[in-house]
Each structure stands twice: as structure tokens, then as C-alpha cells.
């Protein structure tokens, strides 16, 4: 176990380091700087701003300065929001995006696993085709289409649910969570169906059937654990994707999460904010992948941690 963590950590370090370095130089090579504006800012002002944010130093110097701050846990000030630090902004946005991602993944799991199981129990019947074609639609339907569609139906026509906000009025978290979760529900449904079908053909299931166990007992007690292995492997990257990809849903529903900050930072050339969010998200992705590997082993005793690498 400890060996697994250590070796994963050793693998992750260079990955993160490469991400930091590549992002640092890539964003600085993009045309346009943080202080370009449509009403042109005088040269004197630009020079002073560059000085204030250490942009007048040679680029390798800026890089080493940034790293030395980073090691001390300092992401620096935001270039755009002049009285905010990057740490403060991430602190404001991350918990909200995280909460949204948790709700979305819960919805995805509940809908996805139920639909996948139903389909796998009676493959190639209507009980299989209907949920699976719904799943296919879900995978194909982007959230920038589904979101406004749900808003139109439940927010504007039926007036059941608020169309914007996060914790501002009751029920405003429902539509965003469904919008974000539905694509993943669809993936999970397909993965569950595949995993279950494979397991249901195994000898030990046949043995269980022969012993006269009820279908529900067979599915929930024996098949599900093995059948869910592909879903679990998918969960790590899925949660990471939810966190990094929540931008569209946050924009549609006016949610003050990290996704909006991240995309705005790129448009604004807010260098420190782009760096901060990129580093954070890449660490999360590495961590979540590790977690889903651990879960996979727990679900499938035939795997061992040391064999995983």
C-alpha cells in the first residue's frame, strides 16, 4: 500500500512539473498581454504595471521567481482582479464546483447504474434498447444544449425550478446537477451494462443460479461488485472531467464556480490565475486517478496494487 502511494507520487511529480513549465511558457507566448485594453493604456502605465507584476524581468527569471513562490504555497496575486490573490479566488470557486461535481456524479451513478443493470439483465430486449438509446442520446447531447432545454421546460414553462444561482433560492442546484451529470450517467449506463454482461456469463454466477439463489440476490450480491469495475475505473477521470469541465454549466446557470474563473482567466490573460487553476486541476486529476485504482483493487481481489504498475 505505502509502496503504491510512494511510487505513484514519484510518477506524479515530473508530470506536474512538466504541466507547470509548459503552461508557464505557453501562456506567455500567446499574443496579447494581461494589460491590453480597447482604450489603449499609455506606455508609462503599462511599464509600471509590468513592474508591479514582475513582468519586466527576463522570462527565465520570472519562471524561477514563480517556482520559488509556488514552493512556499504562494500562487501570487491575480493580474485582473487587483485586490485578490489566486489562492483566495480558488478558495471561493473550488468548493462550489466540487459540490456541483459531487451532486452530478451522484445523479450519474444512480441513473447510470440502474439503467445499465436493467439493460444487462435482459439483453437485446426493449428493456435493453430503450435505456441504451437514451444513454446514447445523453452522450451525444452537449450540456450547452441540454441546460437551456431543461431551463426552458422546468424553469420557464412549468416554473418549477429557478434558472440561475447557487444556494440563492431553494432548488436552484437541481437543474445544474442534472445537466452536468446526464452525460456521465449515459457513459456509466453503458459501462455498467458491459461490465454486468461479462460478469453474468461467468461460472460463479452460473453456480449461484444453480444453487437456486434469487435473481436479485445474484445481481446485487455477486454480480454487481465485479460488474462495476469498469465504472469505478471511469470514476476518477470522470470526476476530474466534471471539475475541469463545469465551465459551460456554470455559465448557463450563473454559478460562481472555478470553471468560470478558469475560462475567464484564459481570455483575460490572467497569468497567475491560469497557472494556479491548471496546477490545482492537474494535481486533482492525478490524485483521483490514484483513488480509482485503489477502488478497483478493492472491488476485484484478483488485482493487486503492486501488479498495477
Amino acid at each position, binding site marked *: 500500500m505505502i509502496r503504491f502511494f510512494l511510487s505513484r507520487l514519484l510518477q506524479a511529480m515530473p508530470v506536474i512539473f512538466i504541466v507547470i513549465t509548459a503552461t508557464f511558457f505557453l501562456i506567455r507566448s*500567446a*499574443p*496579447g*498581454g494581461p494589460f*491590453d*485594453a*480597447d*482604450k*489603449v*493604456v*499609455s506606455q*508609462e*502605465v503599462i511599464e*509600471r*504595471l509590468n513592474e*508591479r507584476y514582475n513582468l519586466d524581468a527576463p522570462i527565465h527569471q520570472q519562471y524561477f521567481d514563480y517556482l520559488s513562490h509556488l514552493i512556499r504555497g504562494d500562487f501570487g*496575486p491575480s493580474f*485582473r*482582479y*487587483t*485586490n*485578490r490573490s489566486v489562492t483566495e*479566488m480558488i478558495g*471561493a*470557486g473550488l468548493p462550489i464546483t466540487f459540490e456541483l461535481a459531487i451532486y452530478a456524479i451522484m445523479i450519474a451513478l444512480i*441513473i447510470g447504474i*440502474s*439503467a445499465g443493470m436493467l439493460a444487462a439483465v435482459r439483453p437485446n430486449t*426493449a428493456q435493453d434498447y*430503450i*435505456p441504451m438509446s*437514451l444513454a446514447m442520446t445523453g452522450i451525444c447531447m452537449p450540456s450547452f444544449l441540454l441546460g*437551456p432545454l431543461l431551463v426552458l421546460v*422546468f*424553469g*420557464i414553462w412549468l*416554473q*418549477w*425550478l*429557478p*434558472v*440561475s*444561482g*447557487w444556494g*440563492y*433560492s*431553494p*432548488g436552484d442546484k*437541481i437543474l445544474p446537477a442534472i445537466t452536468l451529470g446526464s452525460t456521465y450517467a449515459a457513459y456509466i449506463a453503458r459501462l455498467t451494462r458491459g461490465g454486468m454482461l461479462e460478469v453474468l456469463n461467468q461460472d460463479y454466477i452460473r453456480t449461484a443460479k444453480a444453487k437456486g439463489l434469487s435473481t436479485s440476490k445474484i445481481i446485487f450480491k455477486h454480480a454487481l461488485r465485479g460488474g462495476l469495475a469498469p465504472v469505478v475505473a471511469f470514476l476518477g477521470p470522470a470526476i476530474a472531467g466534471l471539475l475541469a469541465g463545469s465551465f459551460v454549466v456554470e*455559465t*448557463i*446557470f*450563473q454559478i*460562481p464556480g472555478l470553471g*468560470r*474563473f478558469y475560462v*475567464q482567466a484564459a*481570455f*483575460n*490573460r490572467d497569468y497567475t490565475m491560469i497557472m494556479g487553476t491548471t496546477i490545482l486541476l492537474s494535481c486533482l486529476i492525478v490524485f483521483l486517478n490514484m483513488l480509482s485504482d485503489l477502488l478497483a483493487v478493492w472491488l476485484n481481489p484478483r488485482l493487486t496494487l503492486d501488479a498495477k504498475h
Partner: protein
Amino acid sequence: MPNKILLPVLLSILLLVGCDLGPSNIESATAKQILHLGNGTEPKDLDPHTVTGVPEHNIISALFEGLISVDPATLAPQPAVAESWVISNDGKRYTFTLRDNSNWSNGDPVTADDFVWSWQRMLSPALASEYAYQLFTVKNAQAFNHGELKDFSQVGVKAINSKTLVIELENPTPYFLSLLAHYSTFAVHPPTILAFGERDQAGTLWTRPGNLVGNGPFTLDSWRLNYIIRVKKNPHYWDHETVRLNEILFYPIDSALTEERMFRTGVLHATSSTPLDKIASYQTNDPDKISIDPYLGTYYYRLNVTEKPLDDVRVRRALSMSIDRQAITDSITKGGQIPAFTFTPPNTQGYFANNNSIRYDLALAQQLLSEAGFPNGEGFPEIELTYNTSDGHRRIAVAIQQMWKLALNINVRLSNQDWKVYLSRIQALDYSIARAAWIGDYPDPNTFLDMFVTDGGNNQTGWSNSQYDELIASAASEADEKKRYKIFQQAENLLMDESPIIPIYTYTRVLLKHPQLKGWEPNILDIHPYKYVYLEDSTINGGQ
């Protein structure tokens, strides 16, 4: 089957929660006088001396007040912190008397020294205020801001006593009072700034809720990043009896579509934008919820006159005269925009350009192009038209590309750029034709025409004309308004004859606005002093 079990379960959950939905913001707002406003992007900061944008302006004008404010309908200067003023005969010396009861939100009196202190802050080189040029009409202010003058006592602003402020100008500047209504010239509370850092230090924590001390009709109550900024009525404001609103909530909303949905479901009283495709439907179905008003801004194309073939004035004029502006405003922008053939919007504080050298005239355009050596477009190189990513800009560019193809038989390549890339290319003159817009800072033709002086920071066309430069300079020292406007007309004629730019239309402000919202007067600066704004139920049952 999942849709047999899951869907009903899901729907009943939705129904349960749905039943809980209380009254919308709009429905409960009138009794409490709480205004909900869409406000574009998250403000960079709330420091009047360091910010530049419209969303920032909207919030700062609730929290602070200048020497002067403007009448919401006519934009005429009105007493604010200054209760009266005297202008010397040569128009270069202003003496302001500050009202006795003007207070900071902590109860301290607002003094003339606060203004001197604040202007020194705003002009200090280290603060790097992007709007410092707003005060360059004040004697020696530019020299101080550029670090050539170290002694601020030589700058033309003095406190004679705690309630008398004297300002000396370089030139008589007829629009000077309008500048004093702009937030960059407002005073800040010195002890508050110093409690959180140095006078000339930007980005300190003084603008946070609980810290910020202002002198406007409202005080900062809470600031949730990228979500909501809430301001509450300020009991220490000198004119608090006029103020009828108890709170204003500003929502930073990036997407016009989201904003429209929030308006439609009763979250907002007014939006900061309107999706192009929704304008017609509101005009037909909900005409009382959409307001279209003239706005002090021009949508235009820049031409890079330093490269062939746009270095030839005949080519530039041919391009300008072959654009059917009416078709663009009728079929694309659809928001009542006015086709523009001159740069300064009509009736900019009584000023009208009188140029008629540019008009929609295909025959003349073809003749000009042929005189320039490209009969029927033959031999005309393919040129690039650059615009920043936006559906509206794209549609206009496509239409103009087609108009030029049909009228002049020339080919234009469209190039769509990310905002910052677009800005850096324009500044480097790395373009042929580029979409642009200019919104006036104050209601005077000068804010438009002084852009195109030689090497002016916002010129960005490479165009230079010494006669034009002289005209703009002579307008600056002319005190008589009629003569001054005559000089501007001459300058504008010259500009249009040379056509380094192609004006396309004069902006309008197209907003969704709830009928409850009263005291919100349309004006060309889109300024709405909140002290006059209030909510009142109208007979129309609105909200949904």
C-alpha cells in the same frame, strides 16, 4: 424500465421542490425597494482610481459621488459634493464650494483636502491609473503623472479651506464639469486608504465590504466573487431623503443568453445586454420590457493606411461608400442603430457633423476604385478583415464582405481573433481592416475626434494629418462653444474626406427593463444615478 420508475420519481422530486418556489425577486422587490441588475462581468476592483470598465462604473457610482453629478435626463452638470461653483472669465479657474453636510459613510465630513489628497493619489505615477489622462486638463497634472514634476503643490488643485476647492486648468475646457462627474476624479477617504496600505498602492484590501468607506448614496454590504455584489442605502449620505431604494444587487453575468433567461424568470429588473435574436420577439410581444435608446458610441472599421492598397485615399473612400449601412442596421443589428457616415454620433451635446463626402453611392465608389488603378476590382489584392470573436461582429463582417464583392468585385478574407490577440494585432498595426468601437468618455465631440491626432494612442490606423492636429489643438483652447463646434466640424470633414476609418453605425443601448423600474431616464451615456431610481408596481402584471 427506467422511464417507468425513474422518471416519475424524478418528476415528483422536482414537483416537491418546485412547490417551494417563493415569489421571484421581481415580485417581492417593490415592497422592499430592492433593485436587481445584470452587470456584465465581475468588476476588477472597486477603487475609482484604478478601474476602467462599465460594470465597475455602475457599482462605483452607487458607492461614491464626485464634486458634480449629472442630470439623468439632460446630462447637465448638477451640484453633488460641490453645492456651487464659480468659473473665471477666461474659463481656466474653477472655484468650488463644498456642501457642509456631505459626509463619508463613517460620518467624517468630506473636505476640499480630501479631493486634493485623492487627486494626488490618482495622478501619482506609482498608482498607474489608466484614467489619469482625465485630469490632464488640470494645470501641471500631466507633468506630475509622467514623473517630470515631483512637487504636487504646483499642480492646479488647491484647498483654500476645508470647504473651498480651487482648480486651475491648462486651457478653457468646456466639458470640464462633465469630467468631474466621472468616477476617476472622485475623492476617496484618506484614512481608509492609509489603513490598508500606502496612498499610491493599488490592489489593497480597502475596497472590501466592511473596509470600504465611500460618500455615495449606498454602502458596500457584501461582495461574493463572480456572483452578487450587494449595496445598501447609506444613512450618512447628504441627500439620503431623495434615495428611495434600500438595496441594489449587481449580478456579474458573462452570457447574454443566461441574463435574458434570468430576466424572463423574474430574477433581474434590467439586463446589461440583449441577445440579438431576442430583440424582435421582445419588440413584438413585450414592447414594454425592452428599451432602445441612443448611446454615445460608434461602430466602425479601422483601415491600416500604412500598407497598400489602403494607403490610397480613393480606395478607402470606395470601400466606405459601397457599404449599405441601412441594410446592416435593419437586418443584422435590428436594435434601432443609426447608420453612420461620420464618426461623432449625431447630437453629441448639441454637436452635429455636417460631412456629406461619404454616402452610399455605388457608382462613385466604382469610379474611385477604377481611378485608383483597379477598374472593376481587377488587380486588387485580397485583403483581410479582422474582428474579435463575436457572432454579431461576424454577421456584419460577412455582410460587408459580400457588399464589397458585389459592388467592387474585390475579395476580402475574414479573420476572427480572440480578444487579446485582436488587441495586440491592432496595436502593432498588424492588420488591413479591423472592426472597432468607440464609446465616448464624456458628452463632447472631443472624446471622439482627438483620437485621430498623429500618434494618438487610440488612432491605430497609421493616419496622420498636420492640419487635423492643428484643428484639434485649436479647439482645445477655444472657449466659445459655437466656434469650437465649427472647428470640430472642419476636423471631422477632413477625417471623413481622408477616411482612415469607416463609420458603420451609431450605437443604441438595447436593454431589457422591467416596467416596475422608474426614474431610469434614457441618456446617451447610459448613466442612471441610483438616487433617483425606484420601483413601483405598474398596472401591467409583469415578472413572467
